[in-house]
């Protein structure tokens, strides 16, 4: 036989449609062993669907299957369930964690694959009465953590791990599968700090050296360039570019992804906003503590000026996400918060909303949206509840009817402004892609027309094109209505291009506040001081 280099994975003319809506078309690419493939695309471009097909997830079969062929080592394979894919050597780390909360990292890494020893009863009752070989388990966990290249405490119970560790535990679990030769990582660095993300990239390089092919899905283009061999850019269900990473750069990739050029020079925008005059102090936070697992706030004191856009940044797990969650009453908090001269009661979301504070949470699925309801509902509901907007009063206010027309109008207004990809304003929210769901959350907050807006990770999971859209929308909102915006984000550049000042949270406390125009290194220094 000839010495052909059969690719490890090959997709030929793969296509998929959901209820008549063509979501994927003509997907063709090859992946060799030890190659790292970066998969980029806007939200809704079809990346997740493609991975679901590769991983044999049920939803694909339930909605009519897919067209085209998948070949592993030159042989055609059909995966009916994720277990088929696992057996063929494909591992996948999803964005949502699949861990048993009360088990240690070791137990999770080896879940349902534990090494066992035969026992007396197992002769009669079968294998399930074998005892677990704890020593071997520890060894294998250690081995898998070594392969990962990042140190995690294997004795720690998942419940009490910081978010980054949970991510690494998931990856370690995939690595501990001996036959795994293709690993799909779906947005693995979303919850990691910059340092942890670097560690992960190093780990991916290690895996590639060992012959594992990695498919790396992310919006952080720098990461793609730094670790991938090949870059696959998808847009609207097709592959628009298949190029070696060495031959391209961030600007080019972005252009292919969105089909339009991205403007925005951080320093120019920052200079412009730095000229703005400072208003009075509109919110003063003193000695705030928040019990948010993974983002504990210990002692934060901060002043926010009216009309400014204040950024809050810092490494993951240091507490920046805890600040808005605590003030808005989603997690137990203590301390003192004074807004516009009046003290706000903590642990009471309603009071905050009544005082015209609004919050766009980073947890859009859990807190942000009513997934089964339509977009209209989602956008208008809080405004209706809190401010009695979009209601037509009858009988002198006794009976309040929903003003359907007004609701539809306002929803469409935001759909246009934020360029939300949907079939109509009546589509259920759960059918939207992640990034578009995020935009709905923003629309919801805007509809409240608040005086003060917390926005937490506004562009998480959103592609490059939409990112600047969202940030511009925020800036516009701030400029036109004078809303004070506090933006929490793990992407420093994003903060620097949007905010006036940036506070850095480290170790649950504020380690410093600098004007946005300050150098990145200065912020970096603040981030790493007092890290817990």
């Amino acid at each position, binding site marked *: 036989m000839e010495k052909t280099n059969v690719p490890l994975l090959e997709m030929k003319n793969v296509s998929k449609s959901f209820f008549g809506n063509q979501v994927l078309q003509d997907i063709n690419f090859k992946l060799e062993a030890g190659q790292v493939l970066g998969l980029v695309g806007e939200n809704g471009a079809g990346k997740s669907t493609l991975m679901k097909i590769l991983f044999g997830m049920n939803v694909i079969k339930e909605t009519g299957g897919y067209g085209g062929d998948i070949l592993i080592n030159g042989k055609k394979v059909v995966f009916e369930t994720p277990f088929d894919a696992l057996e063929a050597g494909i591992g996948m780390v999803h964005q949502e964690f699949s861990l048993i909360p009360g088990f240690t990292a070791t137990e999770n890494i080896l879940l349902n694959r534990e090494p066992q020893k035969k026992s007396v009863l197992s002769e009669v009752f079968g294998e399930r009465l074998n*005892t677990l070989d704890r020593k071997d388990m520890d060894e294998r966990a250690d081995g898998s953590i070594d392969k990962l290249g990042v140190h995690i405490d294997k004795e720690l119970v998942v419940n009490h791990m910081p978010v980054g560790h949970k991510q690494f535990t998931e990856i370690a679990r995939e690595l501990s599968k001996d036959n795994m030769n293709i690993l799909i990582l779906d947005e693995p660095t979303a919850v990691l700090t910059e340092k942890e993300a670097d560690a992960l990239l190093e780990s991916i390089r290690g895996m590639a050296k060992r012959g594992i092919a990695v498919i790396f899905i992310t919006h952080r283009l720098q990461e793609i360039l730094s670790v991938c061999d090949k870059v696959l850019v998808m847009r609207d269900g097709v592959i628009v570019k298949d190029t070696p990473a060495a031959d391209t750069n961030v600007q080019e990739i972005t252009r292919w992804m969105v089909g339009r050029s991205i403007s925005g020079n951080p320093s120019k925008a920052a200079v412009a906003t730095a000229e703005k005059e400072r208003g009075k102090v509109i919110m003063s936070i003193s000695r705030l503590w928040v019990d948010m697992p993974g983002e504990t706030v210990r002692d934060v004191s901060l002043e926010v000026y009216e009309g400014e856009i204040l950024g809050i940044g810092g490494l993951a797990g240091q507490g920046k996400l805890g600040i808005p969650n605590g003030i808005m009453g989603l997690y137990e908090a203590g301390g003192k918060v004074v807004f516009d001269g009046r003290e706000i009661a903590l642990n009471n979301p309603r009071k905050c909303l009544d005082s015209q504070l609004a919050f766009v949470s980073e947890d859009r699925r859990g807190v942000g949206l009513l997934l089964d309801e339509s977009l209209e509902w989602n956008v208008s509901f809080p405004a209706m509840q809190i401010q009695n907007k979009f209601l037509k009063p009858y009988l002198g206010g006794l009976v309040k009817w929903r003003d359907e027309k007004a609701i539809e109008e306002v929803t469409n207004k935001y759909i246009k402004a934020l360029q939300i990809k949907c079939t109509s304003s009546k589509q259920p929210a759960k059918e939207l892609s992640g990034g578009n769901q995020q935009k709905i959350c923003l629309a919801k907050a805007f509809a409240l027309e608040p005086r003060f807006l917390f926005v937490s990770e506004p562009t998480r999971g959103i592609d490059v094109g939409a990112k600047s859209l969202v940030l511009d929308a925020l800036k516009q909102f701030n400029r036109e209505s004078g809303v004070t915006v506090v933006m929490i984000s793990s992407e420093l550049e994003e903060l620097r291009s949007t905010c006036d000042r940036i506070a850095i949270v480290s170790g649950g406390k504020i380690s410093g506040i600098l004007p946005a125009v300050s150098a990145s290194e200065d912020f970096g220094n603040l981030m790493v001081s007092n890290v817990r």
Partner: protein
Amino acid sequence: MKNRKTGYEAPLEKISPARKVLGFARDNTVPLMFILICAICIPLSGFSVNYLLAEIVTRISRNSFLILSLLIPIMAGMGLNFGMTLGAMAGEIGLILVSDWQIWGIPGMVLAMIISIPISIGLGVLCGKIMNMAKGREMITGYIMNYFINGIYQLIVLYAMGVVIPIIHSSIILPRGYGIRNTVSLLAMRQSLDNLIAIRINGVKIPVMTFVVIALLCLFIVWFRKTKLGQDMRAVGQDMEVARAAGINVERTRIISIVISTVLAGFGMIIYLQNMGNLSTYTAHSQIGMFCIAALLVGGASVDRATIGNVFLGVTLFHLMFIVAPSAGTALMGDSMIGEYFRVFVSYAVITLALIMYETKKRKASSKAARELALAQKLEEENK
């Protein structure tokens, strides 16, 4: 100082002795409350310490096996297995047949246990399958299944026995010619396990062999947790979806946990009845589920967590209260009927209270971390 399990670094603080006591009291409210009730009722009841000791030893040996059978379903996330009564009924059927065949003593017990096994397995599989259809509502499902299977039990024992199932001795058959009498005497095997090795200390009889059997079950449970099946159950108990995604057969694992519990309940009921010496055919199993679960809760267990320690602490405290409460009530009110009523009232009230208190404790625990933060802030301020 880093807490290994939580990764949380607690600020170093001097905890005053008073604080320590309060903390302990908060964590163990229900058992402490029971100790208080007993402390009040024991002197009122007028029983001697020796008498109480003898009674408690008897009850521990009689009930522990049954209560231990509840531990495995809790581990698998099935909650409190009200369906243990099904196992009790299987054990009773075994005993009825064994009595009829005039098999006495320990061999009779063993034979009854063997007969109960296939019945328990069948009922356990049925119960487990139905509970799987009602995920999240296993406890109430088990509770209602009791009534259903009780009906079938009565159908068999009250109608089929003597007709379809041959019964040799008409002495245990009702006058009308079929169906088993209200009580079946188990004199022939009465306390056969207890007396096998019994020692007397200070007038208190200790049934050593029974305790050995109980100890063996405890060892089995401890060992079971270390097996693959035990680990699978723990995983299923915490997050069914994650376990399913990992390839564990969630439904089957849950059913197995109920089957094991039912078989053990069958054995436990036989041990219980051999101590009593008398089988109340139609009512023996009716309250057994309720009281075993109450005892377990009193020992500090909750719907999702129970240990062997909970079992023994619970059986001691609960039964102590059960013994002294009526006499204490009589001493207070002067009427014996009041005493009986009082006992039932306290039993049910205690179960309700245990469930409420654990709910409250759970909520308090979740805000514990919050209080620690506030404390940490305060300390820093003081140390500045």
